[in-house]
């Protein structure tokens, strides 16, 4: 994947987030503090603003620049987590070579591991990791598929992960303070991770 495609993917993700304002905001208002949509779109807007100046950089530099910028832009819980993702992605093996499905799998694995190191959470804790960990696994297990097949598999894995957050209590994030009252609501960070994944996959296929 070229820098061009990374920036196109970011633009697609941003547009998709805008389309899901009500969902994402509503979920964080229900079991968080209502700002996740604002935080995540502030990040997406910032990346959009950087796009032009990054157009001629290699993917590793793009990822690093995005990471540093998001670190100082998003804030909240999602800020350090998302910027950790990009910081790790910048160092993924083969990032500046032509991308294969294995590169994508590796990048998502590296990014997801960085989020786990920073936030200490795991699958089943009702966070964005419920989308990212199954997504990374699905990508790794299907690196031999065509991009279109891989996209479809990725979206299903992300969607299942997102849906799984509905029926559990949270152990991390603000929803953890809610105990049983969080049950019945999808985690807002899982929702935004799913929306982004689906938008990027659509863009690819």
């Amino acid at each position, binding site marked *: 994947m070229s820098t061009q495609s990374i920036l196109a993917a970011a633009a697609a993700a941003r547009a998709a987030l805008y389309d899901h304002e009500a969902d994402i905001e509503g979920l964080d208002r229900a079991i968080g503090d209502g700002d996740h949509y*604002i935080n995540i779109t502030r990040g997406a807007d910032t990346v959009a603003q950087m796009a032009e100046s990054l157009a001629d950089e290699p993917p590793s530099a793009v990822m690093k620049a995005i990471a540093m910028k998001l670190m100082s832009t998003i*804030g909240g819980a999602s800020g350090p987590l998302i910027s950790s993702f990009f910081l790790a992605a910048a160092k993924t093996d083969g990032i500046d070579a032509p991308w294969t499905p294995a590169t994508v799998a590796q990048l998502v694995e590296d990014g997801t591991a960085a989020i786990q190191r920073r936030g200490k959470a795991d699958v089943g804790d009702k966070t964005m990791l419920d989308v990212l960990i199954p997504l990374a696994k699905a990508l790794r297990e299907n690196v031999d598929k065509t991009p279109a097949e891989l996209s479809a598999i990725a979206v299903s894995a992300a969607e299942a992960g997102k849906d799984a957050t509905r029926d559990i209590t949270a152990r991390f994030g603000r929803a953890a303070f809610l*105990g049983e009252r969080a049950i019945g609501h999808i985690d807002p960070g899982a929702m935004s991770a799913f929306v982004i994944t689906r938008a990027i996959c659509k863009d690819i296929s």
Partner: protein
Amino acid sequence: MKKLINAPDTVLDQSLAGLGRAHGDLLSVHLSPRYVTRAPKATGKVALISGGGSGHEPLHAGFVGKGMLDAACPGEVFTSPTPDQMLAAAEAVDTGAGVLWIVKNYAGDVMNFEMAAEMFDGRSETILTNDDVAVETSTHSQGRRGVAATVIVEKIVGAAAEAGQDLTTLKALGERVNGRSGSMGVALSSCTVPAAGKPTFELSDNEMEFGVGIHGEPGRRRETLREADAIVSDMLDAILDDVKPSGHVLVLVNGMGGTPLMELYLLMDALARRCDDEGLTIARSLVGNYCTSLEMQGASITLTDLDDEMVSLWDAPVRTPALHWG
């Protein structure tokens, strides 16, 4: 949404600019990145830095000044500030004696301060406040929320830093104050985040949220609004389940932003009567808006089990926009 603002995205900078205009004798406001420092800079003491999402004013920037914080980092409304702010603040106020980060226990704040600490070249330690007894810890890996006791930690540790205590001692002191404090809040109405434009939650005309968080997060239960005496009693019971004071206590009756002082003093009366019954002596008290939730109607009670050192540090001089005595 009805607010006296120009636009949601200029609220924070314009509010900080106003803080700077009002209190130029006590502090300096920096906008890019955003942090507020004590003016003039202190010398030869451990620097105390706090911060967190905005919307809790006067917490934290209103506590910058002699005898309390050296710097505060305000994030967007209800959103943790970012590591670049904390780093810039630390570089501005570190005297060489080290930096003590005072952080309310929320995932976002903890992670952002953690990143800043990793990036900061000087020596630093962290105190996490987690005084909110509303939400039980057992099933949650993150522990309890940090709320109004943060003010008490900042005041007492601030006085000790002013007196020259070192980083390790200050960290231990802050943890002691936090550990001996418990808070409980109620909301009668929601707050509205400017960028969201609509209330964070809905309460019907006769409902209150018992154990509400300072971002409008739900607490223990939603229940029918009752008499102040009954509410205060339940709040104090919840605190006393956790903090077991023996004699002298500090109480903070804290408004959430939209509750008038008349009601806060009435809660103070109810609390004082309950403390009399419990054989507790209110040795020190504070009544007012100190750790707020925008325009939310509601209040919290914080109780701190005092020891002699804490009392004398509480009484030590403080010169900040929101606390000023001695």
